[in-house]
């Protein structure tokens, strides 16, 4: 569990206590000081508390724990522990190439101006499908659009191992085609072993700390 920051909880707690005080002693608002207190307690503090809460929930929505809390995502979580570096998500997760506590979001957000917002909207749709729709089998889950190289290049662009990799320079224009998403990192038979949850019954899993 990600513990909410103590300051946030303390602040919201203070707002609850003060709102409770005004609720129990509404006659305080007869005096000028009471009116000011009521304005602070019933307007300023709740607005700040909800803003803080919203911000906290938005951060939590980016956590691996949040993404994997739906049953249908279990196999995708397991695929992060496959003992085979050809599984791209597993390699990234196990070697800390992505933050483990934000592993899903790091690769599945769009690195555009409104990318995080779009990712949250997609998340809301997933919640709707999880509880009110027909949940597909894990192996049938596909991306809405093909994975864009932009998401890979957010980290890999400029890396020496990426720039000097012979396969990335197989032809003179290969690097440009990769950088402009004309050749996909994932579906061009180079890094095409991704989550592959349909194969999890036949693989071995990495046991951390062994």
């Amino acid at each position, binding site marked *: *569990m*990600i513990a*909410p920051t103590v300051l*946030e*909880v303390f602040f*919201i*707690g203070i*707002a*609850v206590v003060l*709102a*409770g005080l*005004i*609720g*129990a002693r*509404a*006659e305080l*608002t*007869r005096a000028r000081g009471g*009116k000011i207190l*009521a*304005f602070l*307690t*019933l*307007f300023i503090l*709740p*607005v700040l*508390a*909800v803003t803080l*809460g*919203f911000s*906290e*929930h938005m951060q*939590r*929505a980016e*956590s691996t*724990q*949040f993404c994997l*809390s*739906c049953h249908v995502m279990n196999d995708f979580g397991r695929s992060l522990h496959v003992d085979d570096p050809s599984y791209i998500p597993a390699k990234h997760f196990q070697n800390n190439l992505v933050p483990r506590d934000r592993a899903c979001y790091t690769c599945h957000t769009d690195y555009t101006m409104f990318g995080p917002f779009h990712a949250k909207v997609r*998340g809301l749709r*997933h*919640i709707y499908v*999880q509880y009110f729709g027909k949940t597909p089998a894990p192996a049938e889950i596909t991306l809405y659009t093909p994975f864009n190289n932009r998401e890979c290049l957010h980290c890999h662009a400029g890396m020496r191992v990426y720039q000097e990799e012979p396969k990335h320079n197989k032809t003179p224009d290969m690097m440009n085609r990769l950088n402009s998403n004309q050749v996909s990192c994932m579906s061009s038979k180079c890094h095409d072993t991704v989550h592959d949850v349909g194969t999890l019954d036949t693989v071995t899993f990495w046991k951390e700390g062994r």
Partner: protein
Amino acid sequence: MTNAGMPVASLERRVHLAAILICLGLVVLLLTLIRVHPLAFMAFILIGCPLVLAGILLFLYSIVSEEPMPRQRAT
């Protein structure tokens, strides 16, 4: 409170109700921070936020609809 004029009692009743709504909303907000789960987020959005928003709007309505003091004295 019963000795006060009707508008004052009405104002206090609305402030009382607004405070209860805001309190409930903030308690829901606190409870949703206990777990990291999509349902906690939905509870925050669908229960906590509307309660707090309703409380704030009721409070703002109560202060803008409060009659001026001279008219209160005249009645």
